[in-house]
């Protein structure tokens, strides 16, 4: 019993990590896009839980709101617009490449396992940065805001241009040519 209390956080972590990995695997394996989307939702929520365990509360909230909320709805809308029932019967391309993909994936997994194992037990990054700003102890949201708008201001602003480009790009590719323009 004491062991469970002492290792409770780790147990929760492994439970969430297992859900995340199994969910991700199901996204690939399920042939119906709706099932795959729901499996992806499980992965998103499990990762939000892992963020909470890592004391990144803001990220956990953002993960639920943006990924499990917004992006998931977008996925489901896109799935609604295609003919879902017919999809599992469609022929799959590149079936022959499955063994090659499996080998490549296993090699990558092996590389990562060896790397993680050799790095050892110590924490990789300083967890204190999650709750400090300018040397003072603050909430996680405040700490993220400080680094976002001070240290990472430029990348943050450039991301806004990336989003603008994505919107305009979608319009450029998706709009209908009107008669007036064709003249």
């Amino acid at each position, binding site marked *: 019993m004491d062991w469970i209390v002492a290792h409770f956080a780790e147990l929760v972590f492994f439970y969430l990590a297992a859900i995340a990995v199994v969910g991700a695997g199901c996204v690939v394996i399920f042939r119906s896009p709706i099932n795959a989307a729901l499996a992806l939702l499980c992965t998103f929520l499990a990762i939000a839980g892992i963020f909470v365990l890592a004391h990144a509360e803001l990220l956990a909230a953002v993960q639920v709101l943006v990924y499990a909320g917004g992006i998931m709805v977008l996925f489901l809308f896109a799935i609604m617009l295609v003919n879902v029932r017919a999809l599992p019967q469609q022929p799959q391309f590149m079936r022959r490449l499955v063994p090659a993909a499996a080998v490549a994936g296993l090699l990558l997994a092996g590389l990562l396992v060896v790397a993680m194992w*050799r790095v050892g037990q110590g924490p990789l990054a300083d967890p204190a940065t999650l709750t400090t700003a300018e040397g003072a102890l603050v909430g996680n949201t405040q700490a993220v805001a400080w680094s976002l708008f001070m240290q990472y201001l430029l990348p943050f602003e450039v991301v806004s241009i990336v989003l603008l480009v994505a919107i305009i790009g979608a319009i450029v590719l998706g709009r209908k040519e009107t008669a007036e323009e064709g003249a």
Partner: protein
Amino acid sequence: MTSIDLYAIAPELVLVVVGSVLVLASAFAPALRPRLVWLAGLGAVGALATRWVLPLPGAVFSAALRVDALARFVDTYILAALLLVLVMAEPYFVRTAVRGGEVYALLLWAATGAMVMAKADHLLPVFIGLELLSVCLYVLNASHRDSLVSLESGFKYLVVGAFASGLLLFGIALVYGAAGTFSLRAIAVVATTQPLTGNPLLLAGLALVLAGLGFKLALVPFHAWAPDVYQGAPTPVTAFLSVVPKGATLVVFARLVTALAPHSLPPRWTTLLAVIAIASQALGNLAAIAQRDLKRMLAYSGIAHMGYAMVGIVAFGAEGLAGVVVYLAAYTFMNLAAFGVVSAFSESEDEPHRLADLAGQGWKRPFLSFALTVSMFALAGIPPTVGFVAKFLVFKAAVTENLVWLAVVGVLNSLVSVFFYFRVVFTLYMRPLPSREPAFAEPWPTRFATGLCTLAMVGLGLLPGWLVSTAEQAVRALLE
């Protein structure tokens, strides 16, 4: 943020603002659309002027960017390529009825992304700059929407590009896990205090970063997308795609490598990068021989040229890196001239750009044929063109660093490449005109742009002193 931060990124700001104005103008003032290319060009000239007028402050934005002599060199290179592409693109977009300011705005924003990336001293702006560049190019590749090959090109570039971005991001995350920082300077400090080879997490991360950047450079074995994407994209976009992302990525590569190994590359990295360089040269040149489509041939030639440029990175040191920088400048003019002429020498964009269509054009259309001939000489590395200077510098750096075999393999590969570059020249001048003459237009903007490239190729080939000394000065900032 201080005013220094702001003026350090003034050229990028100019491009972003002009891009936004272009989009708004094309939406709300359709009558202005035919003139918008002038505004885009003005934006590029303005950005170029700001870069040269304002001083270089060094590290800005909490050391996220480093605006040094190398940054100025690369900005100049990117903006020059942008200007030449804008000039060439105008007749093309008129002919294919791709209208509106959006395509020009996307070109400007893509250049912004490349410029951010090339002066990043931090892995975060590297990734975001690369994303900005890539997202613009996904759209630009598919912008000729009536053409199936253009859509295919955009789609393929999207899938491969997203995959490459994923690898790069994953690698960056592992590097962060190992070093505890995104900043290249801070990673360099970590690298000098503890041996890199003993840190498997960092090595795994770097391997993935190498793969991600390798996709963008189209190095073997990450090259398979290049021919299809080059062939399908609108030709001016292909020209842009073939020089700007590769230039910016090579500079990121140089910054990363010098941060990790300040004095010399570890022997295993030398071997790995040398193998990639040789494989790219060999595959690019051998596959180019088999091509009958000019754009596909130039795609394979681009793979080979990135292999030559990698020789400079492998050789390392001031000489090798200066060679890489000169190579970028040379490659820009050679490729832009070649694609400019290819874009003029085609009747319809949906048709393949067959080599056979050039038959006899040498005497019929002397100006563009001469430009194409010079660019083929330059790509083959024949004096007195700038292509020779660039190859000479990287191979000389390899010899200085006792990598004679690398230089020998490079020279042998160049000899192989002479065959397919000269086949183009042979077709232009020695084959008879076909009985049904193709109706090629020779719009003045294309002549102007290719003429400028030709002047640059020959001028910088005869008098390379200024280019080489500027490159050496730019690289010195990197090795401090």
